[in-house]
């Protein structure tokens, strides 16, 4: 009984510590809520949402045989509508072989290397974005629920530390904008709450689909901080923490953002 009481006390302490800096669950708003009605209309209509072009490409890619094993995704995973439903909602997830979390793009490339014996797709390539968008779209409407395991915990903590830490020439942490000033504007653009609900997103500024890591690298450049390569463990840890912030919010992939 005593140990159970101690655990509860510790949990309460941790929860209090988190609540002190982060956005309370009731005040969380998807980036969608910050958008103009015109931009919302693009996301709401699947025949107007350009992200759906990538989803269609990804669907074709899902059935295409690849690599020396001559297997398609569909040969193992069958119908993506059932097998991939909810998968994107729990990524980044822990990979036992690598001993660290991997994001959805990395999981697709690991699958290509391990099971299809095919060359991995380059980060931000149309092929990888298309397949990622197709897989993630199967989870549309599913609540984000990153796994909580002792293995993942240190990585979430590292991601949170990255988010809270001031860095770069402007001496900013992610939290200084996305927790403290999310209701304000930065050069006319809404700051928003750093809740990655719809990746990969079609960003009007990019005129293309792009991954969460592309967005993160944008922000890091904006802080004039040392950037990380695509797929860097630091970025995956940050992704993991951001997904834990968005726990319970529905996936919108492929979302449209200004």
């Amino acid at each position, binding site marked *: 009984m005593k140990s159970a009481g101690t655990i509860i006390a510790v949990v309460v302490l941790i929860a209090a510590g988190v609540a002190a800096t982060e956005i309370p669950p009731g005040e969380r708003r998807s980036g969608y809520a910050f958008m103009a009605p015109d931009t919302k209309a693009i996301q709401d209509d699947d*025949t*107007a949402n*350009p992200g759906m*072009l990538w989803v*269609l490409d990804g669907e074709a890619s899902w059935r295409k045989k690849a690599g020396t094993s001559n297997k398609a995704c569909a040969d193992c995973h069958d119908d993506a509508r059932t097998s991939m439903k909810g998968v994107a909602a729990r990524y980044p997830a822990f990979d036992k072989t690598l001993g660290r979390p991997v994001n959805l793009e990395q999981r697709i490339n690991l699958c290509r290397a391990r099971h299809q014996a095919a060359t991995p797709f380059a980060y931000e390539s149309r092929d990888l974005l298309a397949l990622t968008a197709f897989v993630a779209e199967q989870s549309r409407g599913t609540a984000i629920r990153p796994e909580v395991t002792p293995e993942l915990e240190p990585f979430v903590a590292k991601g949170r530390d990255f988010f809270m830490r001031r860095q770069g020439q402007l001496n900013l942490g992610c939290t200084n904008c996305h927790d403290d000033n999310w209701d304000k504007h930065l050069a006319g653009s809404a700051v928003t709450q750093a809740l990655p609900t719809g990746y990969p997103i079609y960003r009007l500024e990019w*005129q293309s689909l792009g991954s969460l890591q592309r967005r993160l690298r944008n922000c890091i450049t904006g802080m004039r901080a040392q950037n990380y390569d695509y797929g860097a463990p630091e970025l995956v840890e940050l992704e993991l923490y951001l997904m834990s912030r968005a726990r319970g919010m529905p996936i919108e992939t492929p979302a449209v953002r200004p």
Partner: protein
Amino acid sequence: MASALINVPKKAKRGDVIEIKTLMSHIMETGYRRTASGELVPRDIITSFTCRYNGEEIFRADLFPAIAANPFITFFTVATESGKFDFEWIGDNGFSETASAAITVE
């Protein structure tokens, strides 16, 4: 990898004004941008879009470098008879894509 998304109502009453929405996958490279080494990126855009309703041209548009990637073109027409809409996009570097959609008019 080019693909189109077309939204035409499957059914309409004769005389109804219907909305047709089209989305075409294309980079729409303006021809004004330069690479990091200063070389001009050659223009690569869609230059023309047409829509035919049972063979008769009902809508045409010329496209120019200022139009965003993945052009979304939407327009209205009057549903006169059952049949087919044929869409055609033509552009630089021999770009040519077609798509079609059927409609039942009652």
